[in-house]
């Protein structure tokens, strides 16, 4: 059995990559994808731990998390469409009407 530390390391890496993307990308859709990466990093962790612990609850959470991620994408894309309609682009750095 692969020790969980490898999974944890991998997931941390994926999480960091996702975070990096969120912080550096302008395109909303790319950011959304990066968030998905982060979520899946967490999922990976949970699955690894569940397997290691022999506990199914973790895997159930992952299922739910996937579904939620999908719903999130749906809502998110809807909002991005509105952004596109208003700004003509999905560059997240453009809407800056509200500040301070």
């Amino acid at each position, binding site marked *: 059995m692969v020790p*969980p530390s490898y999974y*944890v390391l991998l*997931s941390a890496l994926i*999480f960091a990559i*996702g975070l990096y993307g*969120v912080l550096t990308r302008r395109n*909303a859709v790319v*950011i*959304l994808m990066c*968030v998905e990466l*982060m*979520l899946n*990093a*967490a*999922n990976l*962790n*949970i699955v*690894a*731990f*569940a397997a290691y*612990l022999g*506990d199914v*609850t*973790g895997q*159930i*959470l992952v299922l*739910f*998390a996937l579904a*939620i991620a999908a*719903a*999130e994408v749906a*809502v*998110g894309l*809807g*909002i*991005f469409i*509105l*952004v596109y309609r*208003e700004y003509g682009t999905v560059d*997240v750095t453009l*809407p*800056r*009407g*509200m*500040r*301070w």
Partner: protein
Amino acid sequence: MVELGFQQADLLPLAPEIAILGSALLILLIDSFSRGKHGKAAVAIAAASVAAAFAASLALYGTTAEAFGGTFVVDGFSLFFNVAILLVTALVVVSSLDYLEEFYPEGADELTEYVVLLLFATAGMMLMASSRSLVTAFIALELAALPSYALVAFAKRNRASIEGGMKYFVLGALSSAFLLYGISLVYGATGAFDFVAIADAIAAGDVEPGVLSLGSLLVLFGLAFKVAAVPFHVWAPDAYTGAPTTIAAFVSSASKIAGFVLLFRLFTTAFPAEVDWVYAAIVLSVVTMTYGNFAAAVQDSVKRMLAYSSIAHAGYALIAVAVFSAEATGDSAFALGAGMSHLLVYGLMNTGAFLVVALVDDYYGAGYTFEDYAGLGRKMPAVGLAMAVFMLSLAGLPTGGGFVSKLVLFAGAVNSGFWWLALLGGVNSALSLYYYTRVLKWMWVEEAPEDQVELDRKPLALYASILFAAVATVALLFAFAPVIETATAAAEALLE
């Protein structure tokens, strides 16, 4: 006894949540099968379901039940928050009747979606109050969050609304990721999702302290995002300002309350005070109330001021969490009960204040800055008086329950040895007087300009909501006993 494999024991305690969810589905159903939209009917159904859920929550009071294998728990604690959340929802639902018709010309048609989203979010929040497992908590949280994103961006032709929704969504998603990652680490460290099981595992001592601490911290940060605690508040000013004002009221009140209930339950049940999150909670509390108040003091827009003020109040409520310390856990029920009471009162005051903004800014179109409120107190004395009640009560003066709850909260801090935190809260309260009374100054002290908009229409539902919130706020000053005593009892039960 129904024999379909359902357990009454599972479903009955969750009757309030089921009522809300059921009516949401019912509205969707009607919407799908009828040709036109029935916005008013949807509102009526929603109102009825909220009332029913409210009644059910009260009726259930005193029962303590676990449902669905302990992933949900219905106790005084959750019911208390059900009441708080439902009060806010009721105010928002009723006032939406007038609000959307005016503010969004297409509103009447869109009302069904609006109502359904509100109900789903409400159900999510109530489930957050009942969750006792990280699994259900995460799901309930997302159930509350996703409709909220949509609601904030609901004014589809309004740039601010879209911008606010986008920011809320992006950051919300990011924080969900942190939360889930935190959950994964806690799971890894303790092997459990159930709060009690986590506590047991920690008590057993066989956990990786670093992993557990980091996990609990990430969970804390995820929830801190939800309650808009500084520095995880960054979304809040923009989302609240951009959102339709009723939704700003809803998100800043109900959503915050829901975040806190989860925070309270999770950190009291699952993580003992020995885990290092206490430091973080203290830092968050101090930073949040200070930042919220300082930033609120320099706003030009009343709505944005209220946004920052709601951040500041998150800081006060965080005191209830921050005062958990190894020496003083025995008295923490008191602080926790005080925090709960404050949140309930805050829900009413804050919602009421936002609804006044909805009336002035959106309904009458009088404008969003402080100056635009000039002389309004005399033109509509009832609303002016209600706003005075909200503002002063938020500031902690005895026009309403906010005075008592804030003081009891500070007393809780003192009781746990955190006198300095109470003093800091006091200084902040004083600063908050500055910006709260600024509203009243414009409403009551300044004279209205010649060219002010006509205020001839009287939106009944909006008025009713505002006045109800005001009366309830005032009433809580006198009838504070049931609130604090219920809250303290619930907190004690939770901490046992």
